[in-house]
């Protein structure tokens, strides 16, 4: 069982999301993450679906996805050939004495400051799941107040379009 990412191009209609999500639950496939957004043509959306599955299961999932009428294309984003990113927004406790330190760390992670109050800061960064996890770990020691994370979105490297 490995973590994998599928990129699924679908028709942008009401009910498509529930049809795809329902497919996973009723066939007993594990779904780790899901993000949906329209593409350049508003008639279509791209779903980036994180799953935990072995080779056989991944093949079954891809076949079942392909069988759905609103599904146009399914590809697996292989880690070595793909660019996969998450976005993180995090609120940390930041009294004046630790503010400088937090800002330095944020710079290391290319995180930007979205909001500051007397005692808190809201930071934003994007990156791989690993980078996000590591940044959260650092922030924990300053007093982590709230987290909002997108799930992964991604695309294949190179010039090929799908």
């Amino acid at each position, binding site marked *: 069982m490995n973590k994998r990412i599928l990129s699924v191009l679908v*028709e942008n209609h009401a009910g498509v999301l529930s049809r795809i999500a329902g497919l996973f639950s009723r066939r007993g496939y594990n779904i780790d993450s899901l993000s949906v957004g329209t593409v350049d043509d508003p008639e279509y959306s791209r779903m980036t679906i994180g799953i935990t599955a072995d080779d056989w299961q991944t093949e079954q999932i891809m076949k079942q996805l392909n069988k759905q009428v*609103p*599904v146009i294309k399914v590809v697996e984003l292989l880690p070595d050939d793909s660019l996969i990113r998450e976005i993180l927004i995090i609120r940390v406790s930041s009294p004046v004495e630790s503010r400088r330190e937090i800002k330095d760390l944020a710079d290391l992670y290319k995180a930007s400051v979205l909001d500051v109050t007397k005692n808190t800061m809201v930071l934003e960064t994007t990156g791989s799941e690993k980078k996000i996890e590591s940044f959260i770990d650092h922030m924990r020691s300053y007093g982590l107040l709230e987290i909002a994370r997108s799930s992964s979105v991604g695309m294949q490297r190179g010039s090929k379009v799908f």
Partner: protein
Amino acid sequence: MEGAKAIIESIEKHGTDRVFGHPGGAVLPLYEALRASNLVHVLTRTEQGAAHAASGYARMSGKPGVCIVTSGPGATNIITGIATAQADSVPLVVITGQVQRSRIGTDAFQEADITGASEPFTKHTYLVQDANELPRIMKEAFHIASTGRPGPVLIDIPVDIQKTDVTDSCETQINIRGYKPVFHGNRKQIKKAISAIEKSERPLVCAGGGILCSGARTPLNLFLQKTGIPVVCTLMGNSAIDGGLANSMGMIGSHGHLRAKQALKESDLLVIIGARISDRATAGGQIFESRKTIVHIDIDPAEVGKNIETQIPIVGDAGDVVMYLLKHIDPEKSWNWKPCRTPSEEPVPSKTRADKLDPAVLLHCVSEKADPDAIFTADVGLNQIWAARHIEMSGKRRFLTSGGLGTMGYGLPSAIGAKMAVPGRQVFAVMGDGGIQMSLGELGTLAESGEKVVILLLNNQYLGMVRELQDNAYGKECRHGVRFEKGPDFVKIAEAYGLKSAHACDMESFEKILDLSLAGHDSWLINCKIDSKINSVRRF
């Protein structure tokens, strides 16, 4: 043109002559348009019955069966029928009424989220939001239901849309980006399969229901005759093989023939055509995967490699692939192998109890007297297994049953639908006393239709299949909830509906009643008093 009229015109345009349905408030405009049309409306007594009748109609006519039901309970009631069609790959177009658009999501009277609820059991669903989408959606629905692997498509139509004028027409070609089913099997793969068959010594064909819905029956039987390759079938493929074929080894699976199982065991190459090889078909051992090459031909790529590992997968229409096989297989070669061990099958008992009927003897008698192109529907339970095992599928006979979902109450309405598709052919509904009580109202549908169906009610006053399962799992003393203590008088019920009916307690009386029923134009219900001790398969 009003939306309702556009819907009815579209149904007419797709070549079907009737709809099966049950009206209600949310389909009033549709029924008004239906009244003014040339379509026949078959009023079934439950919405589930409408779907089953449409299924029988679709399977015999080769065209999608059409159902119209109302919103809320009408829509939820038809789900079992839709799921039954989905499991057996039967093309249906199901139209459900919906509350008006402005009330959707308000828990209005008779509102149900039917596109959501039916989604796991349909090939595709639509919720119509704009009347101008109707012509395109109707066209697409018939296309999706009947092409590729057939299946049910549901269209939920709010009542206000049915009353809105449609200004657009859909003259353009259908183009659904995500739906392009493969029809022609990959020639390279088929050639690979041919060379594997030619190299094998004991090849075996396994024929499934896909043979029947793709029209591959004739080329397949030619192929089997020409090559002498033995063949087994699944329950759904029961009437895919000519009964007279010498190399036919019978049915595989949990209630299959021992000869078929032995042939599977001894074969070195298996060509599965139009079958998904469900858990019921594989029951009784891992014989499928034991050191043999497997060629799997199916129109649904998701079925190939799902249940059994396949060495040569071929995605395509069974008819197309079998025609190619027939043309290109070495005409000099012949494989007339027979299993070395031929286990003795269940014999037809020569001696039976005087006051009770033996289903095997009874069905052999029916088999002899029925037309060579008779249609048999079977319900679910012991009656289904008996019908599959004891009725000879010779000539152009057809066997229809709920093989995938195993829905009790399928036999009677599907027989009515089948008869309507091919009025010239004899139709028998083999039922149990459990299943018929789930569809009793359809006796009224049958009486009203004026069509002739002979119902063979194999009455043992038990839910016999469940009883057998309980006996095997927990022992005979643990039977529970499987006995009908006060079974009704089915003859009186049938007569109340205006049907002909009689009790049969022994073969002499049964034969007399059967002859009578076959001679006339009336529908019959023959209440056959079956020896309640008899189980699905008797091993001697």
